[in-house]
């Protein structure tokens, strides 16, 4: 590291999953980067569950990979069990997920970044931002020194004003046992940026030896796993099990009786928690009829003593957590390494950001990750990458990388963040994507390849091979227009023999039938895929994509029409200087919301919560005038 001065191109604050991707993207785009973190040893730490991916999240990870993100690569290296979820629900919602060895993950992230020649790490804390007029110029550190850069990416996670709750106990911390960040929230508020409070929780960690494993059910991953990253070859990860157990009425009774001791119910926590990831006390309180909830015991790393209890997030007093869990046969003698806790933290409602993740108030200041009110590693990483890229684009005076709702889950994520009210931590779901059928994990490369290339985020080699894969896919689909002979048809559909002999017809038409899969189509249609140069993992994906594109053809066309309809207002931009408060024909709620959000396009305005179609008509009338 040769920086004598304290001048950089990009300053990234925080080294969680958002920070890591920001740094990684920025150094790749030849930026000189300063990373400010309280503890470099925790770079890339997975602070909650030991898994990456999952429904909708797996799609995010795949998309990150096309843009050269770090998460997919190191997940493949550190994964100990891989599984494709949702197999029975339809191809677009198939989602890859992996159990991760947290220690390997952390180590891999650090190996990739810590010694990068364009990165300098400051073990410090940011207490204020430095401005020239309304442009960012650097940050002020707790140790008193100032570092300078035209762009700053804030990824402070749960560390802003972090407050840990265990029963009535309150501890000021960013994560259990780690210091919280102070001062920066107030500093930003004084610049007119609004903040709010959210909460999230984490379950207790159990001592492996104290669990009666005979009374659990082992669950393994796929025997034929697929990796997250297109760059991963020779993929043969381990397949370690997780373990199921079930809560019971006795366990529920303990929790029910002590509900008042949970800070969520006593009113001690004012932040809003996520509905979809409820604490165990929430689940029992809200679903009284359910006699049992499923819990997963997940080892946090290979040979780990520490077991994560997925599904038992709680902020009850430690003693109650223990008594309740000990009602479950497998946990009769269980011991804690750490109790579950809830953490309250500050965030900045992301409606104050542009679609580039740059602040609308302060030029050059970017926000990414939990600080924007999201939850989850994958959501954080996706924003981190976009913020890192766009800070670099800002410095190069180039157009930012913005993805559409029809292009990527990342696009849906960011568009939702900047237009919707964040009243609870935001997690990605497939149902948030109205063009879900187009956003498949298996076509992430095809969707995003060109954009990734245009922004120099993909290596030439990967671009070339993925481009080849795309061409092969299209070519194979075209080839299926070729006809099947009568004999071939009988092989596929023996039941047709009894009826009158079918005429030869395009293979495509047979593949469209629900009962026909691509594996029953004659091999002669796929000779090109037998080429030894092609990664066998990809051959599987090409088969899947070909099959999906043919079987879903009608649906995909309908979905594309919907995209076209949306596009009409999507690109109508709204003048920057519009004074919503003076348009008295707008509803009061719309006036307030629009004044706060200040959408960039009519499409965005449409999605601002509380804005009615009538308000949109008023706006479009004003714009078209």
């Amino acid at each position, binding site marked *: 590291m040769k920086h004598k001065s304290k001048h950089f191109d990009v300053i990234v604050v925080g080294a969680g999953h958002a920070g890591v991707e920001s740094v990684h993207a920025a150094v790749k785009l030849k930026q000189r980067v300063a990373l400010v973190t309280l503890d470099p040893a925790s770079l890339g730490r997975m602070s909650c569950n030991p898994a990456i991916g999952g429904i909708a999240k797996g799609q995010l990870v795949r998309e990150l990979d096309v843009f050269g993100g770090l998460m997919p690569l190191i997940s493949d290296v550190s994964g100990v069990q891989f599984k494709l979820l949702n197999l029975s629900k339809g191809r677009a919602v198939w989602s890859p997920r992996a159990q991760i060895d947290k220690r390997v993950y952390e180590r891999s992230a650090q190996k990739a970044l810590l010694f990068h020649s364009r990165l300098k790490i400051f073990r410090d804390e940011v207490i204020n931002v430095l401005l020239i007029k309304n442009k960012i110029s650097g940050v002020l550190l707790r140790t008193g020194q100032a570092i300078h850069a035209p762009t700053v990416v804030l990824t402070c996670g749960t560390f802003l004003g972090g407050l840990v709750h265990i029963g009535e106990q309150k501890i000021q911390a960013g994560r259990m046992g780690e210091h919280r960040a102070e001062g920066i929230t107030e500093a930003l508020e004084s610049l007119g940026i609004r903040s709010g409070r959210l909460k999230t929780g984490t379950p207790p960690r159990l001592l492996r030896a104290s669990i009666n494993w005979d009374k659990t059910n082992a669950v393994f991953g796929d025997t034929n796993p697929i990796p997250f990253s297109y760059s991963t070859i020779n993929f043969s990860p381990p397949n370690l099990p997780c373990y199921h157990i079930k809560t019971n009425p006795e366990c529920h009774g303990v929790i029910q009786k002590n509900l008042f001791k949970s800070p969520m119910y006593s009113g001690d926590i004012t932040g809003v928690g996520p509905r979809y990831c409820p604490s165990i006390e929430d689940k029992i309180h809200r679903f009284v009829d359910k006699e049992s909830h499923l819990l997963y015991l997940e080892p946090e790393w290979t040979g780990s003593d520490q077991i994560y209890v997925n599904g038992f997030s709680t902020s009850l007093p430690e003693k109650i957590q223990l008594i309740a869990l000990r009602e479950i046969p497998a946990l009769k003698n269980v011991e804690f390494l750490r109790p579950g806790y809830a953490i309250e933290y500050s965030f900045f409602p992301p409606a104050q950001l542009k679609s580039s993740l740059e602040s609308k108030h302060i030029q050059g200041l970017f926000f990414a990750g939990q600080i924007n009110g999201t939850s989850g590693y994958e959501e954080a990483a996706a924003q981190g990458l976009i913020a890192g890229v766009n800070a670099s684009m800002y410095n190069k005076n180039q157009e930012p990388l913005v993805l559409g709702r029809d292009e990527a889950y990342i696009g849906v994520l960011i568009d939702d963040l900047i237009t919707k009210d964040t009243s609870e931590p935001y997690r990605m779901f497939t149902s948030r994507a109205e063009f879900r059928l187009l956003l498949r994990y298996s076509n992430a490369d095809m969707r995003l390849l060109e954009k990734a290339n245009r922004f120099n985020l993909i290596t030439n080699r990967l671009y070339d091979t993925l481009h080849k894969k795309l061409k092969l896919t299209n070519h194979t689909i075209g080839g299926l227009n070729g006809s099947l002979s009568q004999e071939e048809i009988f092989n596929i559909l023996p039941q047709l023999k009894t009826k009158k002999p079918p005429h030869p017809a395009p293979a495509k038409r047979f593949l469209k039938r629900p009962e026909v899969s691509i594996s029953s189509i004659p091999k002669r249609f796929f000779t090109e895929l037998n080429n030894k140069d092609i990664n066998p993992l990809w051959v599987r994906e090409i088969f899947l994509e070909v099959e999906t594109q043919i079987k879903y053809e009608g649906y995909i066309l309908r979905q594309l029409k919907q995209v076209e309809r949306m596009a*009409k207002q999507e690109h109508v931009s709204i003048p920057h200087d519009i004074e919503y408060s003076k348009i008295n024909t707008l509803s009061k709620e719309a006036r307030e919301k629009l004044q706060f959000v200040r959408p960039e396009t009519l499409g965005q305005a449409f999605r601002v919560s509380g804005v009615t179609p009538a308000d949109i008509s008023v706006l479009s009338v004003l714009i*078209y005038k």
Partner: protein
Amino acid sequence: MNTPADTIVAPATPFGFGGISVVRLSGPFSEKIVYTITSLPNGKKPLFKPRQSTHTLLVEKNGATFDDGLITFFKSPSSYTGEDSFEISCHGNPTIVQKIIDRCCEEGARMAEPGEFTRRSFINGKIDLLQAESVSSLIYSKSCEGASLNHKILQGKLSKKIIEIKEKIITLLIMVEFELDFSEEDLQPDLRKNLLSKIKPILSEIEKLLSTRKEGRLLTEGALVVITGKPNVGKSTLLNSLTETDRAITSPIPGTTRDSIEVSLLLFGVPVRFCDTAGIRKGAVDVEQEGIRRTKILTQKADLVLCLYEYKKNHTNKQKPVDLRQEIHIINKTDLIMPGELKNLKKLLPNYVFISAKKKDGLNILKRKIKDLLGISSSLSNTFSLTTARQRIALEDTCNCLAAGIKLLQDNNFSCELLSFELCSALDSIDSLLGTTAPNEIINRVFSSFCVGK
């Protein structure tokens, strides 16, 4: 388009002389404008109270009086448009109406565009898109029952029904989305059966609504009943008898009627447009040919066709199958048939109606049959109907999506994501009716079909 922040003015009653005419003014400056163009007989300025009528003089810029009238003030938001509005009732003279409008424009108002009052009402959230559409139908409505039907839509009855359906679809969608995004917890074991049992009633509910569309259209547009038959079978005479007019010229010479003639009348409260056509025969001259061509087009458009025949000995009318839903087959000139023969004939042709247009025999039986076949029910006023093609198309789309959804659900291994797609599309179509996601073009098309002033 103009900004809704200005003030608009337009006559609210049709052009012409009459007892009174009404001019309507709406917008933020309407109170100021009315204040300037009025004065009390004692020279003072009047004070307008909301929902009250005030008698004032209407004055020129120089203070000279040009008429007097009653002015009613509707204060925002309790007005049709949701803005401050005034209704100025003056003497029913086009010159005075024009004068008032000129004065308002002098003081800062502008002429309203077609449908602008209703557009503002929509923009201000006073009515939804369905209701807005219904206003247009109300104005053009040709019968009392039609007017009352539109009045019901205006009150949001149809909207309410459709919102109910929408809510039901959303409930299904929630179950499906839950399954897609939280599949790890197997919380909906009987999902497929459950969904099937819920989706079917929704479909039939919409189908029921769709069947009301014909009724709705009959009431607003009137049913088209076309009379056809060979030349000189007595079509024009039937038209005159049915409508009790002498609109059609009748004569014993075949081919007298060379163009179609339309007469409207209220049949059991429903407007019916009876149409006499040129008889179709071979070897007709050019003008007549053209009439025959038009007859063919008209018959295709008709809600009901009256096929008129003349009785001839040894003649049976069995050559083509009788479609009782679209046609009534009538034997005319029963006055020329011997009574005994007529009795036999009636037995032989039970589906025929026997009349004498000239003597006005059997006309009531015919009228009742027309009413039955047009599907006009007497309980109509208690229901609500779809009135425009847009409403029908949107609901048909919804139907198709739900039907596709049911088809998916019939497979044990149904794809949840495709079902979701069908439900979302169904919702999209419904939304286009309620205006919640209506693209601009639709809104503009709805408003451009209004007349000035409403």
